């Protein structure tokens, strides 16, 4: 199998324009003949649903939450990048493109990333027009701040709630289209499977989470905007319900899953405090603009009150190791440095799994009032969770799983290898390579939904005139019966252990063996253990209650069942990628200073995995990464 990424010809900075000039367009009169299914209502899903409906398509949008406004994009705190150069600090589309490619450790597709940087400016215009209340300066113009991996201020923000405001903007557009009847919204409805008819994605199977009813929906194309798979780690900054099921079900129907081992560990989260914990809470990376990260130089000082540790006895390890970026080094590098410090026994707080994020200098320089204005809600949140006042005592932070760069393989049109199946936002693999820079996830979600798919979808749809799928096609009934049988199978296990046990056990395995540091030996061990755990799940799961009604344990069981298969694929991908790059750190491959050692000679490709049946080894399909513009270099933030 070979993959055609359909990258337009011509110089890099003209590709998107060339594409748009030649793109196949569906006329307004024809748009209303096409039915689209959009799964997910986060930034990617809501923006796509609103825009495509506005263009005239008939849209059905599905989300598992009780309202589209609650998708997990809402929790993004820090901001959204755009190459506006409003700060006159030398930013440009090329610079944003280059920072993103470099940030991804040269494992993303050049043409996609350049397009992302190009449309970034329109996103800000669009959001302001919708009424997103971005932070402003006294003169009335938009304010910016810096984020990791950049030397310019290009991040737009709305207090510490940028994701919320951007999502509510997209949700308002979606609500408008629901009101006009152009979108039919299905909240509390979860996708269980993809319906493939004659090789094309033509529908989905869903379960109504209120009544338990399982049914099918047919359409001319299916768009998955279902987010990432961070919850495979159990403890992550993701919401409780975030899951891999939609994309993993599509994988089992033939869609290729690309780079599943690329996961992002965010450096600034509140450390784990006990095994009762259900999630980890992120403290926005923006805090690193003013906070300084340190641990004691000597192990003996770790238990002391930080205020009593003299300046000379502190190790500001990011400033020491990466002087030009300092505390704003990219996420993978900052996380790994924190782990190293803790591994050396210099961590602080319970279990020694934490480092200090100290605002004392910033408070001295700017005054507490300014810090309150900038980060007040984050300090409040920190105090609420830990019971500590970060104005008086440094915060304790530790890395946690936050984002997943891998996802379903898509071409330049955001279409997977299954014709008709399009994948947007975090659910696809395309733009962040092996590590995502801060404030780029919101940018990508909205770019895909507002400004990419509305142009690229026509490439597929124009081939589908007069090919309306028959909802009575046997593929629908067959997929429906398979989904029903799977739910029944879960209920029939009648074992002794709750879903939570399996999810936690899997999460620990993945964190230990496929987290911040991975090794060949460890990954092989993990694969064996995951297989055992999966077998235990299918023989000893205990589920109570009725499948015909609200049953959250049943919902979770279905998701955990998929994570138990997916986790193995993730470890396999990590094993096969025998190099270090970005968030994927193989202990066998590091420089003498402990930095990730890439191997461009052998691994400058996308690993796309093809399902070949349960129990069979999936097939690895490689898409070579060809760089026309940038020169591969060792990523340095020193």
């Amino acid at each position: 199998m070979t993959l055609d990424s359909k990258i337009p010809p011509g110089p890099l900075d003209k590709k998107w324009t060339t594409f748009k000039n030649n793109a196949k367009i569906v006329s307004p009169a024809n748009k209303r003949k096409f039915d689209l299914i959009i799964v997910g209502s986060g930034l990617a899903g809501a923006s796509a649903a609103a825009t495509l409906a506005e263009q005239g398509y008939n849209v059905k949008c599905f989300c598992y939450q009780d309202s589209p406004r609650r998708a997990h994009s809402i929790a993004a705190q820090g901001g959204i990048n755009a190459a506006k150069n409003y700060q006159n600090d030398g930013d440009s589309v090329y610079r944003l493109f280059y920072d993103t490619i470099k940030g991804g450790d040269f494992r993303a597709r050049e043409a996609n990333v350049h397009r992302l940087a190009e449309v970034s400016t329109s996103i800000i215009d669009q959001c302001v027009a919708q009424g997103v209340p971005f932070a402003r300066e006294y003169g009335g113009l938009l304010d910016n701040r810096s984020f990791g991996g950049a030397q310019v201020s290009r991040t737009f923000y709305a207090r510490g709630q940028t994701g919320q405001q951007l999502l509510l903007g997209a949700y308002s557009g979606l609500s408008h289209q629901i009101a006009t009847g152009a979108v039919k919204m299905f909240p509390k409805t979860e996708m269980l499977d993809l319906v493939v008819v004659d090789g094309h994605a033509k529908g989905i199977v869903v379960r109504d989470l209120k009544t338990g009813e399982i049914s099918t929906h047919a359409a001319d194309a299916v768009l998955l905007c279902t987010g990432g798979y961070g919850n495979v780690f159990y403890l992550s900054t993701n919401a409780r319900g975030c899951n891999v099921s939609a994309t993993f079900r599509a994988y089992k129907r033939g869609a290729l899953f690309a780079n599943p081992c690329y996961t992002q560990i965010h450096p600034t989260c509140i450390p784990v405090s006990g095994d009762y914990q259900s999630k980890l809470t992120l403290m926005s990376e923006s805090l690193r603009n003013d906070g300084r990260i340190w641990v004691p130089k000597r192990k003996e000082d770790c238990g002391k009150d930080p205020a009593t540790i003299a300046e000379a006895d502190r190790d500001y390890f990011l400033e020491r190791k990466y002087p030009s970026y300092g505390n704003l080094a990219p996420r993978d590098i900052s996380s790994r440095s924190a782990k190293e410090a803790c591994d050396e026994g210099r961590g602080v707080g319970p279990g020694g799994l934490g480092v200090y994020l100290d605002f004392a200098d910033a408070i001295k320089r700017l005054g507490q009032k300014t810090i309150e204005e900038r980060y007040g809600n984050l300090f409040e949140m920190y105090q609420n969770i830990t019971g500590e006042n970060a104005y008086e005592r440094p915060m304790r932070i530790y890395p946690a799983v936050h984002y997943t760069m891998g996802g379903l393989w898509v071409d330049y049109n955001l279409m997977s290898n299954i014709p008709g199946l399009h994948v947007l936002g975090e659910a696809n693999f395309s733009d962040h390579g092996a590590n995502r820079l801060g404030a780029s996830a919101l940018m990508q979600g909205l770019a895909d939904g507002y400004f990419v798919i509305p142009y690229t979808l026509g490439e597929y749809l124009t081939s589908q005139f007069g090919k309306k799928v028959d909802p009575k096609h046997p593929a629908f009934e067959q997929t429906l019966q398979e989904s029903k049988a799977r739910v029944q199978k879960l209920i029939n296990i009648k074992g002794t252990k709750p879903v939570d046990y399996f999810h936690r056990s899997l999460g620990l395995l993945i964190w230990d063996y496929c987290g911040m540091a991975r090794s060949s030996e460890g990954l092989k061990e993990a694969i064996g253990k995951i297989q055992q755990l999966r077998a235990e799940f299918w023989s000893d799961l205990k589920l109570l209650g009725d499948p015909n009604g609200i049953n959250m344990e049943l919902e979770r069981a279905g998701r955990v069942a998929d994570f138990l298969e997916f986790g193995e694929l993730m470890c396999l991908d990590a094993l096969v990628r025998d190099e270090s790059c970005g968030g994927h750190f193989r202990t066998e491959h590091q420089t003498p200073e402990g930095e990730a050692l890439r191997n461009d000679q052998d691994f400058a490709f996308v690993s796309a995995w093809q399902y070949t049946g349960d129990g069979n080894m999936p097939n690895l399909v490689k898409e070579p990464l060809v760089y026309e513009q940038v020169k591969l270099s060792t990523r340095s933030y020193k």
Partner: protein
Amino acid sequence: MNFHLKVWRQKDTNAPGTLEEYEAENIPAGASFLEMLDIVNADLTRKNIEPIQFDSDCREGICGTCSLTINGIPHGKGRGTTCQLYMRKFQDGETITIEPFRADAFPVQRDLVTNRSAFDRVIQAGGYISERTGSAPDANSVPISKVIADQAMDAAACIGCGACAAACPNGSAMLFVSAKVTHLGLLPQGKPEKNRRVLSMVRQMDEEGFGNCSNYYACEAVCPAGVPAAFIGRMNREFTAASMKEMVGMSV
């Protein structure tokens, strides 16, 4: 810590509900209220009792999914959502009563889960600015004073959880509706549709069965996003002005 729980159990919207009593044992003080319920549910499952159904998602106070009435107060005592309420705030051995959000417009679906889709329909009635993707002018072409932008943000911070309506003796959603009306009405981009927005959102709110505001201010006291009740007065003024225009036959 140990707690004695009284939890509302209800099979579905039409079935009658009752308070069932359970023990929550060995709960760490650092656990959140929802993590406490997770522990109780694991215990119930072991005892072959169906787990308590309750809504939650982000568990960091922003998505607005969690929604419990704890000892009579939506989201419990103190500012913040239920997911951000920590057990260290309770007394060891305390009896805690847990009910769903109570408002006519939020029917109970099961146990502690309510249907809050009325809020979505209120937004659909006009809680948006009509603009076409791709048609926006440059973001800096319309300067907006920092004061106005900050105030709009105060209003836009609403998380749509419904605690305001659940706390109100009239089951009024006016804090929620006024937050959106204020957010969009303050910004220059939202002005062209200001009148029709407030009229149709308020009418939809009435149609959903939410009550009127009688200045009780319970909404403000429980709002996890700190939305001030002053916005209700602002909405009333906008509504009055818009309905006068409509009454004398001016187009809105």
